[in-house]
């Protein structure tokens, strides 16, 4: 089909004959495309922030545990010879950082001796690599150096601290079990309270420096969890394979972030469906808008088409004209929607949207599957959504114009003129 400029021009002018109707159709399509871009942009931003947390220092790209750890989380399910294992992992290519953690269920009570024995609360001793966790996304992120746990001091999860009515500067008595299950106890100074990016930490966390925790729990050179960050989270699988083959970890269980947090994989799969749903909505909006407009304008013009045919216009040109009207209608709408949607997404991707405030919630964070995720979402502009929109609308426009166009092309000129 050769593009005839005059056909295009006539088609454009025809659209101007009933401006209000055309604008309504354009508006419907624009709204569809706008929704597609903004909603999918919001989703993309939301999922990306979740992915960033899941593949950040909190969960890492690859995790190593005792094979039974994830099931039972017993203190005596530890990885032996930690320093050797860490050395071997660091020697692997594309490894950015390696850090270890120890965990042990504990009882915690205010350290100040009262007249009555203290009511204990359940807690969890978490020994961490302080410098590794102090990075963005880590358990100790955003803590000033002076507040970091050191010898004899800990950082407490906010909720636990509230339950124990403890504030920074006070002391906490911690009773836990060593690997034999025998009680170990000590009193620590509370340096600061944290959220920890993680519900477990906030609810139960008694976070101490790895060395302190290892000493407290009698786990010298041992750990329950090794967190490995590589250069690229998408290559976690390859990294995991290499870690598995290390001699120091031959009896350990090595998993990627996808296995550590399978929900995220399902969520990402879900995002594709959400994208598709909005694309389908756009299709329907475009189809309804264009079909309606084109049908009406075709039927109105039966006489005119008859006249054109009588004057010798070829039916093919008539079809092209109507098809162009439809495509122009669609493209103008989709372009308008794209421009508006892109502007909104780009602006909000800088300012962020506070979901909590929109829903009247004052809190800063929500918890999802134990992870703390900020209510503030930074939408992400995805160009392919614009292209999908354009594609979808163009196809719909051509398809929905076919019927009226064919009707028009098949008119008997003599009858049509008389109608």
């Amino acid at each position, binding site marked *: 089909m050769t593009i005839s400029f005059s056909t295009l021009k006539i088609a454009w002018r025809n659209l101007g004959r009933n401006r209000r109707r055309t604008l309504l159709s354009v508006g419907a399509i624009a709204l569809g495309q706008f929704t597609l871009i903004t909603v999918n942009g919001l989703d993309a931003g939301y999922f990306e922030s979740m992915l960033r947390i899941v593949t950040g220092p909190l969960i890492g790209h690859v995790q190593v545990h005792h094979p039974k750890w994830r099931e039972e989380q017993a203190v005596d399910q530890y990885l032996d010879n930690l320093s050797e294992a860490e050395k071997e992992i660091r020697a692997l290519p594309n490894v950015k950082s390696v850090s270890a953690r120890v965990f042990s269920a504990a009882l915690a009570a205010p350290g100040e001796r009262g007249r009555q*024995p203290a*009511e204990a609360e*359940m807690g969890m001793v978490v020994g961490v690599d302080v410098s590794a966790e102090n990075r963005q996304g880590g358990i100790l992120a955003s803590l000033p150096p002076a507040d970091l746990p050191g010898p004899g001091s800990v950082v407490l999860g906010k909720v636990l601290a509230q339950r124990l009515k403890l504030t920074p500067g006070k002391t906490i008595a911690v009773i836990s079990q060593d690997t034999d299950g025998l009680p170990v106890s000590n*009193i620590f100074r509370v340096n600061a309270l944290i959220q920890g990016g993680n519900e477990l930490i906030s609810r139960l966390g008694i976070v101490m420096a790895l060395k302190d925790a290892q000493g407290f729990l009698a786990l010298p050179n041992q750990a329950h969890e090794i967190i490995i960050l590589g250069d690229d989270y998408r290559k976690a699988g390859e990294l995991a394979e290499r870690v598995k083959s290390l001699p120091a970890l031959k009896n350990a269980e090595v998993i990627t972030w996808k296995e550590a947090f399978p929900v995220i994989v399902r969520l990402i799969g879900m995002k594709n469906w959400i994208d598709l749903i909005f694309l389908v909505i756009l299709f329907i909006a475009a189809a309804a808008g264009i079909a309606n407009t084109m049908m009406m304008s075709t039927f109105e013009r039966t006489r005119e088409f008859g006249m054109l045919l009588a004057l010798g216009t070829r039916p093919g040109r008539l079809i092209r004209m109507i098809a162009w009207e439809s495509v122009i209608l669609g493209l103008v709408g989709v372009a308008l929607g794209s421009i508006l949607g892109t502007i909104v997404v780009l602006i909000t991707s800088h300012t962020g949207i506070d979901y909590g405030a929109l829903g009247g919630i004052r809190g800063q964070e929500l918890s999802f599957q134990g992870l703390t995720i900020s209510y503030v979402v930074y939408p992400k502009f995805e160009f392919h959504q614009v292209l999908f929109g354009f594609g979808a609308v163009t196809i719909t426009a051509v398809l929905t114009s076919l019927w009226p166009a064919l009707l028009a092309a098949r008119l008997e000129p003599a009858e049509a003129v008389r109608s």
Partner: protein
Amino acid sequence: MKSLKKIMKVVILGIVLLAPLLPAAVSAETEGAPDLKVVLKRLDDLFRSASSVGSMELTIVKPRRKHILKLKIWTQGEDKALIVIEAPERDKGTSTLKVGKNLWNYLPKINRTIRIPPSMMQSSWMGSDFTNDDLVKESSLLKDFDSRMAGRSEDPPGWKIELTAKPGLVGLWERIEYLVDSEGGLPREARFYDRRNRLARIMTFDEIKTFSGRTIPAHLTLIPIDTDGKPEPDTRTEMRYLEVKFNLPVPDSTFSLSELERNR
């Protein structure tokens, strides 16, 4: 007295109603069996006394190592108990006080007493296969379970008693199988089934000894069973009574928080 009559009525009624249903084989199997109620009463009362003072060796076996604790135990009725670890040196003085449903642990290292919260009741006591709840709960085989003499048992030889938790009983065990010796006097083995009717632990009783006139199995072994129905490898807790004196006066003050922390 009135309630006893009532129970007797129910029992007799039960026998009359159920007797024709029982196959002859069962009655033959249980022929010569000791009286069920007497046996259960004896099992219930085996370690019970108005008061007791004893010492015990607790051996905790784990796949990687074995741990032996020496304990001193004071009891008063079912309600009160004080347990103090005397050895090894590292854990010396660590003690547990039970009064009714409450449990306190005293940690000499930090000189603090801490009440065990309800959420920790199912946790291990001192690294053993016993839970805190095992120390606190008071249950009676006779009162809390429906029982049935199931016949002779081969290994160990004796009688097998099946106990099923009465409806409405809040507890961990749905069913207990007790194997008692031929005279029905002493327990040999008990198998505990959880609420999903899965075998969860086995307790064996041996080393029959007499302490201040009372004959008891002095050595009890608790074997936890894994979810796959097999004993956990190299995991058990053994209790061995070294010395027990029953029914000698123990002052009330023994079971107080101040006593818990005293001189340890």
